[in-house]
Structures are given as structure tokens and as C-alpha cells.
């Protein structure tokens, strides 16, 4: 059913259609609206049987989900940013135990400085945790990916994060097609766990494993994600058969057939990028887009195949590998190893910094001419950065960096010592 609705509300409705049995919730922006909506459904008796548990931390949220999933219940939670970091130990544990938990990550920056706005630093920090990560471009895709995620997680008995851009998607009202219960039931069978805590058949889960078997257990997690590379496109095809639309898959290309320059990105920024590409195409530029939906597993072959006919690529990413450059870009470069393709990394939108079309036009044109440095920081205020660096050179105790920066940019009206 078509609805004009908030992204979070749409996702909550999608989750409810997946018949979750346990939902654990701890508040952190910008995922709160999702679990609030689910909590209301459970309390009103609209979503049953389901237990909604208000936990005392994100660490507890994931731990409750570990317990409930191991006991055979379909388990869901949502988080973002600091919350994801606070639950990290349990995030790795859920993957190690092979528990098919589905978690929404409403992507948000990581402090310090504390910042509630969108970038991809949070979930990308968990890229090696064993969780699969699917990135939604639109709210429609966020709805669809959640439904696919339960199926994928439970077929492989591995957990999945469905990542959607905080505020940009979670708080945006737009038209979303909410599937019917019949459609979801036809797509997603009841949860049949591979291992379960059951007094009728007692088993020990989570035993200590030494060097004699640890590597094999870890390899199996990798093998599961390699299976996911095969499974994700199949599940997207099946999804199309039942729901009638393309959603999910490993990657998505746009105007790529004859493209000499390919822009690579994840999440909602793909919409803006496509607009810019349309405008550049109208001017005769041979430019295309490669959207990565599945960041983990990373579809190396598919990315290579999409890029191989081009001449160069630029990865525009909302994340930063401090001391190195890009995170997504590193993965893409792995995919095109030995191809001779020129590659550029552009770090943009950190902490919710707007990424306007004008900046992208400029960036993509520079990329076409191969005039970029290997790593570009889009719209970075070099004057502010250089001023702070100079200040630190002159005075050892030059004050808190973030506060100095805010003062230099005239955002706070304090009379700074070194203004």
C-alpha cells in the first residue's frame, strides 16, 4: 500500500510485517522513531506474539537479542553511532555465535566531537565483525532490505545490519509502498534456528575454542559471507517476483555502459549523484554511477566487472580511515587490483556536512581530468584547519580543538584566548 510516511515509521511497519518475536530497544538518535513505533504496536496488541524490552544500554540490547535468538526467537534491534560502539563486544559475539539477528543502523557520525548527524563511520567500523551490511538508498529500499535481511540472516544463520542514512532517510517523509502481510509471509518463512537452547535437547553454546579449531570457526564466518554473495541476488530476484519491484542485490549501476568515469557511493547520496550525472550526461560527459548495496560481503567481482570498461573511478564516501584515506575506496581498489584503472577517493559529508550538487559537479569534472589528489576532502575549510595547525605550532596549550574551530568559524560567540 502506498503511503506518505516517515522513513523510520515505514521501517517499523516493515519490521512488524516480518513478525519479530523479540525487539530490544535503547534510545539513540536517529534510530529512536523506529523502535518507538514498534513499541507502540506491541503495547497496543497489534504486533503479537512479541516482547518489547526496554533495556538499559545498547550492550544489553544486543545481549538480550543474543539470548532470545539463541533460544529460537526472531530478534531485532536498532542503533546508531555511539550506541553501536557501546555494543561492539556483543556485536562480534552475535556473529561468532552465528545468530541471525537483524539490526537497523541509522548511520550517524562518531564523536568526539559529539555529533548526531549522518555519515557512515559507525557501521563501517564494524566491517570486520562478521555481520553483513546492506545500505539503503531510499526509504523504499530500506523497507525492502529489512524484509530481505531476515530471510538472508536466517538462511545463513548470520546477523545483518541494514544501514540507512540517519535523518536523511530516517526522518524524511516520502512515498513508500508498504507490502501486505500476505506478501511478506510468502517471502519470509517462520524462523527455524540452526541451534537452539531447548531442555528437550540440551546443548552447550559458546564453548571456549583454542588454537586447534579457532581459525576454522572464523573461516566459516567468511564462508557464510561468500555464500551470501550468491544468495543476495537470488533473494532480490525472488523479492521482485512477489513484491514486483527491483530492490536489493549486491550493486546497482546507472548510466554505466559507456562511462569513462564512474562515481561509486553507498546510501542516500546516490540520489544526488545521479542528478549530477544526468546533468553532466546532458552536457556530453561520459560518466556513470555504481551504487554499492552490499558492503559486507563486499562484491569484489561484481564491482570489478562494473568498472573494468571505464577509465577511472572516484569513490565518494561518508567515512574516513584516519591515517590512510577511504574505507570504501580501499575495498574498491582491492576489486580492481591490476586493472590499471585510475582511482580517486573523496571524503565528503562527515558529521552531516551537506554535499551540494555544485561541489559534486566540480569534483567529478576534476576526476574526469584526473586533476585530483589521491584523497580529496570535499568542501573542507582549509583556512580553519591551517589556522588551528598554526595555533598548535605556536602554543602548546592551544585549547580544545573543536571549540577553537567553532570560534574561528564564527559559530560560537565566545571571546577565545587566541582569537
Amino acid at each position, binding site marked *: 500500500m502506498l503511503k506518505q510516511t516517515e522513513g523510520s515509521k515505514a521501517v517499523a511497519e516493515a519490521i512488524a510485517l516480518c513478525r519479530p518475536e523479540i525487539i530490544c530497544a535503547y534510545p539513540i538518535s536517529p534510530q529512536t522513531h523506529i523502535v518507538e513505533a514498534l513499541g507502540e504496536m506491541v503495547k497496543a496488541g497489534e504486533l503479537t506474539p512479541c516482547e518489547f524490552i526496554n533495556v538499559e544500554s545498547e550492550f544489553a540490547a544486543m545481549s538480550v537479542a543474543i539470548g532470545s535468538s539463541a533460544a529460537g526467537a526472531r530478534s531485532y534491534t536498532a542503533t546508531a553511532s555511539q550506541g553501536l560502539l557501546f555494543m561492539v563486544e556483543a556485536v562480534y559475539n552475535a556473529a561468532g555465535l552465528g545468530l541471525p539477528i537483524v539490526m537497523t543502523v541509522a548511520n550517524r557520525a562518531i564523536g568526539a566531537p559529539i555529533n548526531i548527524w549522518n555519515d557512515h563511520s559507525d557501521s563501517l567500523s564494524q566491517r570486520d565483525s562478521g555481520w553483513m551490511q546492506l545500505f539503503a538508498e531510499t526509504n523504499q529500499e530500506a523497507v525492502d532490505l529489512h524484509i530481505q535481511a531476515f530471510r538472508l540472516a536466517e538462511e545463513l544463520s548470520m546477523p545483518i545490519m541494514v544501514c540507512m542514512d540517519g535523518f536523511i532517510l530516517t526522518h524524511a517523509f516520502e512515498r513508500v509502498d508498504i507490502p501486505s502481510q500476505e506478501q511478506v509471509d510468502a517471502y519470509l518463512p517462520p524462523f527455524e534456528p540452526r541451534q537452539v537452547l531447548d531442555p528437550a535437547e540440551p546443548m552447550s553454546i559458546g*564453548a571456549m575454542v583454542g588454537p586447534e579449531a579457532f581459525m576454522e570457526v572464523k573461516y566459516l564466518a567468511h564462508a557464510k559471507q561468500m555464500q551470501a554473495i550468491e544468495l543476495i541476488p537470488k533473494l532480490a530476484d525472488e523479492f521482485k517476483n512477489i513484491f514486483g519491484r527491483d530492490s536489493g542485490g549486491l550493486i546497482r549501476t546507472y548510466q554505466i555502459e559507456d562511462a569513462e568515469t564512474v562515481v561509486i557511493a553507498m546510501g542516500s547520496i546516490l540520489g544526488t549523484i545521479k542528478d549530477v550525472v544526468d546533468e553532466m550526461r546532458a552536457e556530453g560527459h561520459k560518466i556513470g554511477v555504481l551504487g554499492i548495496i552490499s558492503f559486507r560481503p563486499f562484491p569484489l567481482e561484481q564491482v570489478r566487472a562494473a568498472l573494468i570498461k571505464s577509465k577511472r573511478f572516484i569513490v565518494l564516501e561518508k567515512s574516513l580511515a584516519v591515517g590512510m584515506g577511504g574505507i570504501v575506496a580501499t575495498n574498491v581498489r582491492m576489486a580492481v587490483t591490476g586493472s590499471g584503472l585510475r582511482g580517486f577517493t573523496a571524503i565528503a559529508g562527515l558529521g552531516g556536512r551537506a554535499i551540494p550538487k555544485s561541489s559534486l559537479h566540480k569534483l567529478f569534472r576534476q576526476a574526469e581530468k584526473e586533476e585530483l589528489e589521491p584523497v580529496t576532502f570535499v568542501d573542507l575549510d582549509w583556512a580553519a584547519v591551517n589556522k588551528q595547525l598554526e595555533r598548535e605550532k605556536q602554543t602548546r596549550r592551544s585549547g580544545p580543538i573543536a571549540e577553537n574551530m567553532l570560534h574561528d568559524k564564527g559559530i560560537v560567540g565566545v571571546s577565545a584566548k587566541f582569537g
Partner: protein
Amino acid sequence: MSFQPVKFYQTGTLTVGNRLLAQDERSVQANQMRSNSINSGHRACQGCGEALGARYAIDAAMAESNGQLIAANATGCLEVFSTPYPESSWQLPWIHSLFGNAPAVATGIAAAMKVKGRNDVRVVAQGGDGGTTDIGFGCLSGMFERNDDVLYICYDNQGYMNTGVQRSSATPPAARTATTMPVGPEPGNVFGQGKNVPEIAMAHNIPYVATATVADLRDLEYKVRKAMQMRGARYIQIFVPCPLGWGAASHDTIRLARLAKETGMFPVFEAEHGEVTSVLKIRNKVAVEEYLKPQKRFAHLFGKHAHPETVARLQAIADRNIRKYGLLSEGDK
């Protein structure tokens, strides 16, 4: 059956007298049909108080739940010695996730059982004092506050024994650990403010809180069975001496547990909805020296460079417990 009340302890010997009781009054552990929940062959040290406590506690919980029991275990000695891959001592469904999340994992299991309509399946969580009073404390308090249907059992051996005997918030003042060495002017652990987790549990007004020791195994079984007859969050802290960590003889585990209770160092009581309902009275009050001296972790308090003032401070703690919980019978005061 005799009309006379049966004394469990024969005068002078302190031997548990099961043979004096009718079959249905005997201990769970005396029953041939006991579940042997933690089976023989595990790798606990000789004289391990925790292994003994866990065996009695979980078998009692199994008996009370007709074998319909699931356990969540925190990281620690109990987890490590019972499940070296691919072996497991556990004869019930058991999960180990992390050091600090056993209460939350148990909450998840209990919620799953509820949603599946399996009200007959009960849930216990268990861990050592480090996993309970330190790193798992947030999850424990959350589980209490929500009154989740979980019995949490803390095996309190007063330190991080699995990692090599470091101090926890349950380590008593003056005790030597690897991180509170007996050096300097105030050797051993600091005299802090203490962290009485049974009392903190009581402050949550949960249905049941109890302490027990491995010296009184009938009492331990009784408390576990009683806890299992209730619903909601329940907490039992069992005092379990650690021969390795305490520098005590492995044959002294029961004796030290008894002395901890008889000195007043470890008050044994039960409480319902935040109010103490019974205490186990001290039978033969002894000075704290009796309890401290057999343990090498307190050796620096005695001998050539003795610290009698420190022993006096420990005695004051014991005396305060005796006063506060009313541990002496009327005639003994």
C-alpha cells in the same frame, strides 16, 4: 516420621544427616535421580568452591523446574573449566556469551520462552563476582529493575581468579591479590566503601535475594528451590572459597566458608521484596583471625611484620555485620 524436630547437624561433627530424614525430605544432591547438571570431568581446581556451589545450585534449580531449565553463563572460571571445546560438563541447555552480559542474555532467553508460551521453561544466569559485581553490574541492575523472570546466581570468590587473582569490587579489604600486593604502608586491598550487591539487589525490591555458602549446602539448596518457586528477578550470592586465589588448602574450602559465616564476615540471610526475612545465626562465634590465618592472602597481617590494627578493622566489619543483621542468637549476646 519422628515427632521430634530433626537436627541436620549431629552434635560436634557438623555432618549433614540425610539418613535421618524421610526420602522426600532428603537433599537434592542425596537423590540418585539428581540431574548432575554439571557433570564430572570438568577442569576445576581441587577444592574449588565454585564448582561445588554450582553443582548444588543448578541441580536444585533443575529439581525445582522438573528439568526445564536453561542457563546463561558469564565468562569466568566456571565457564572456562566446564566447557573446553569440544567438551562440556553441562547436562542442560547452556550458553556463554560474554563476561558482562549474562543477565541480559538470560533476559533474552526468558523473553523468548514467554513469547513462545513456554512458561514451564525457567532461566538461570550465573557468573563469578567479577562478572556480577563489576563488569556485568549494569546488565544485572537492568534485569532486576525490569523484574525479568531470571534467577541470577553469583559465585562469590572475592576476586578475578580466572585471569590470575586480581582484585574485584568483592575483594575484602587488606586481601592480597595480583593487583593489591602486600607491600607499602597499607599492604593488600584498600579499605574502600565496599559494594554489597545483595543489599543493592534488595534496593531494587525484587521478589527474592539470598546469600549462602558452600558450608551450608542444605541451606543453599533450600534457597535455590525457594527462589525457583517464585517468578521475577531473583538473586542469590553464594560464598565460594578459592584455594588458588586465597592461598588456602584445598581441603579447607568448606571450613573457610563456615568460618566466613561464623565470624560474621559473610552474613547469610534471605530477603523478600527488599526486606530481610531470615538470617542464618552464628552457631559458634569466632574471631576473624580464625578465618584470616589459614589464607595466604592475609598472611601479611600476621607474623614478624604484623598489622594488628588492620585485623582490628576487619573485626569491626564483622562486628558491624553481626549487629546489622542480628547474626547472634539471644543467648549468645
